[in-house]
């Protein structure tokens, strides 16, 4: 290790191994964390980070290896034991209950919660102490993503942890919220709480962490001091290969293809956000990037563009024609394609094969149906082309969508739309959960489409992604879309303000108007 702890390490891992059928998730993993240290755990998707932290938190029992906490043997059989020993964890997909209020959620994560009134009091005092404003009586379903994360963090802090595990904490936060979180984490570290920080955002790790351990295919492949290592060097350590940066030839802008004029629509989703007078134009060859914290109307915007929910007449136009009343298939036939965020169940039918899934959205535009009969040979060709062109790792086109890993399925659903030669394409979170190399390939494909004259809307919470490929940037904030601005030259500060990062301190976040 390049980081030499001055005293007994807080946590010591040695030879941890965990195998699942067909894959070794952790292979002889070992490293140590000193008290008060902020330690990064880096790796691609599927590198074994989650399995490792679940082992530390007592959710997974390793096949071999040992752990020490404060120099004593440590092998929690269940999370409550880990919590009792001073290990707390903030989950990547929040382990919160939307229908319950903040205090109830926090009580559920505690071993021995005090009566409700005392608990509310303590929540208030801890939240003030660490600069995480939160009202104990609000229903979690009504909170913004940043506020939900605060619930998780406060739940951990109430138990005075010695080690706090954070799994991808910033992937859903605005830049301002990230700053607030980092301030909190640094305070904690100064008080002697060690933090195990999982992320693949390298710039954040460089600014926050004292040490880093890199995992690849379940093995420790290196460690470094992030402040002294370049982001590129860390990325290549993670991937084990040299990275390609997407490049774009200067395309030409054509006529306006997709236009929304004062589009307002109440949400049909539970805890949803209503769209409020959306105004935008996307030209042929242009990429409009739409940023914003999750839950500010991204899903609703995609629904209304795809035709799943119908806009009021006279608010949505494609090539100058009012398409508000048209359904998804008619829009697809015209060349307006969409790829939603939720891969299983929205973009793809989980239990149907890749061929069948190719048929489901490919049919209107690729004419996969002849005289009312399904043209399977042609569909199979189409599915195989997607698999080959987008490097989808699968035993074949006959396997069910559910059997693919998240990243591979994402490549498939994006590839399926890209290869249909769309006139306009709307994608939501195109590289969510995809590893760095595949994400670069997807972005390149989107750039190539724009070059050929397709109008693109890329909705994403990954700001770096938007800044990398978009021509114009707009932000969604509580269902309102800001005026699009040229992406080149926008600073993170300005973007944060467009996303309304400052508003979210304690204002209400209610959707329904």
């Amino acid at each position, binding site marked *: 290790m390049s980081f030499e702890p001055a005293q007994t390490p807080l946590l010591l891992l040695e030879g941890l191994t965990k195998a699942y059928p067909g894959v070794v998730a952790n292979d002889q993993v070992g490293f140590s964390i000193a008290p008060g240290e902020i330690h990064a755990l880096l790796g691609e998707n599927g590198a074994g980070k989650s399995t490792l932290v*679940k082992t530390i938190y*007592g*959710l*997974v029992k390793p096949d071999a290896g040992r752990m020490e906490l404060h120099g004593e043997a440590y092998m929690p059989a*269940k*999370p*409550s034991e880990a919590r009792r020993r001073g290990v707390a964890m903030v*989950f990547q997909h*929040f*382990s*919160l*209950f*939307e*229908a*319950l209020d903040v205090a*109830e959620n926090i*009580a*559920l*994560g505690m071993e021995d*919660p005090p009566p409700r009134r005392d608990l509310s009091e303590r929540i208030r005092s801890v939240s003030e102490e660490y600069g995480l404003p939160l009202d104990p009586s609000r229903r979690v*379903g009504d909170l913004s993503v940043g506020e939900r994360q605060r619930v998780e963090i406060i739940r951990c802090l109430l138990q005075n942890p010695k080690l706090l595990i954070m799994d991808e904490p910033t992937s859903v936060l605005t830049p301002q919220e990230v700053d607030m979180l980092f301030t909190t984490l640094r305070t904690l570290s100064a008080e002697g709480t060690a933090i195990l920080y999982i992320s693949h955002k390298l710039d954040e790790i460089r600014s926050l962490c004292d040490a880093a351990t890199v995992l690849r295919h379940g093995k420790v492949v290196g460690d470094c001091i992030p402040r002294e290592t370049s982001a590129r060097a860390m990325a290549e350590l993670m991937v084990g290969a040299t990275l390609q940066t997407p490049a774009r030839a200067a395309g030409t802008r054509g006529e306006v293809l997709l236009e929304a004029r004062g589009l307002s629509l109440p949400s049909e989703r*539970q805890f949803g956000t209503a769209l409020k007078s959306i105004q935008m134009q996307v030209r042929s060859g242009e990429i409009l990037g739409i940023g914003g914290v999750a839950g500010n109307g991204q899903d609703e915007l995609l629904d209304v563009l795809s035709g799943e929910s119908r806009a009021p007449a006279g608010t949505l136009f494609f090539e100058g024609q009012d398409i508000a009343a048209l359904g998804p298939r008619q829009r697809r036939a015209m060349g307006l394609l969409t790829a939603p965020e939720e891969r299983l169940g929205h973009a793809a039918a989980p239990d149907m094969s890749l061929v069948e899934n190719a048929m489901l959205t490919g049919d209107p535009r690729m004419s996969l149906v002849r005289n009312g009969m399904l043209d399977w040979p042609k569909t199979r060709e189409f599915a195989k082309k997607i698999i080959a062109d987008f490097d989808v790792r699968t035993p074949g086109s006959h396997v069910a969508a559910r059997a693919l890993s998240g990243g591979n399925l994402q490549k498939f659903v994006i590839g399926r739309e890209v290869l249909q030669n769309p006139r306009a394409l709307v994608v939501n979170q195109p590289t969510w959960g995809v590893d760095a190399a595949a994400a670069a390939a997807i972005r390149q494909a989107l750039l190539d489409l724009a070059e050929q004259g397709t109008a693109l809307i890329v909705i994403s919470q990954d700001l770096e992604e938007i800044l990398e490929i978009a021509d114009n940037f707009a932000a969604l904030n509580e269902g309102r879309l800001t005026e699009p601005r040229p992406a080149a030259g926008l600073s993170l500060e300005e973007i944060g303000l467009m996303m309304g990062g400052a508003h979210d301190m304690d204002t209400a976040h209610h959707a*329904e108007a």
Partner: protein
Amino acid sequence: MGAISIELLLASLMVASTPILLAAIGELVVEKSGVLNLGVEGMMITGAICGFAVAVETGSPFLGFVGAALGGATLSVIFAVLTQYLLSNQVATGLALTLFGLGFSALIGQGYVGIKPPAIGSVNLGILSDIPFVGPVLFSHDVTVYVALALVAAVWAFLKFSRAGLILRAVGESHEAAHALGYKVVRIRFLAILFGGACAGLGGAYLSLVRVPQWTEGMTAGAGWIALALVVFGAWKPWRVLLGAYLFGGVTVLQLNLQAAGLKVPVELLSMSPYLITILVLVIMSADRRRAALNAPAALGRVFHAST
């Protein structure tokens, strides 16, 4: 209409409501834990015959009710093992449970047709029972009626105030999250299913021991299904379920009285009125779809399989 006594009507309303109230409050707990057990009808009728048989053999209605609760709970164990350990589909398993219960109860009940069960006395509430009007309506029933009411209050308080109730609701809300926090999802659901089975059994026994009182095949006649509907239309709230049960019981008693009074309305219309009116009223009360959805357990009917 003059032939109908309001006092008698209200008094029999409480008796008529008790079976579905018992079954519904049990199912409410089951559904709050995220499990949809469509076998209520089967567990009710099994409880009806188990309770009847035990009461006849021992001569004690009290032991009869104990037997009914055990019978209903035993049947629900089949459902719990199939759905929680063998991960079978809850809807199909519940339907199978109903069919099984109906057939099984007919088999046990063959020797009990036409027998009178031992009578169950009403509680002596002393001076309370002597109050005019209020006394006969509220304070002249058998103990089960009050047990059912106490059960509604207990379930309400359990779900709202106790930690165990909070955990149960959390499991029904998101089993993944509850599992991640280290709660035993399967064990909690198993216990909830047992409770639901026991309550359905009690409801069934109330039919065969008090309300009718005798044993006939298929005597629950859809009461289990109405109990299921009450839970959904009552938006998973104990007091609304109580209201729904009283409404159903009330209309049932009223239409029987109207039939007896010779009202010039087709009997078929009168007979279907309890079902129609109850569901109509509860649908109107839960008309705000979004708010009703808020109270619905989000994990209802979903199979839980711990991946780690």
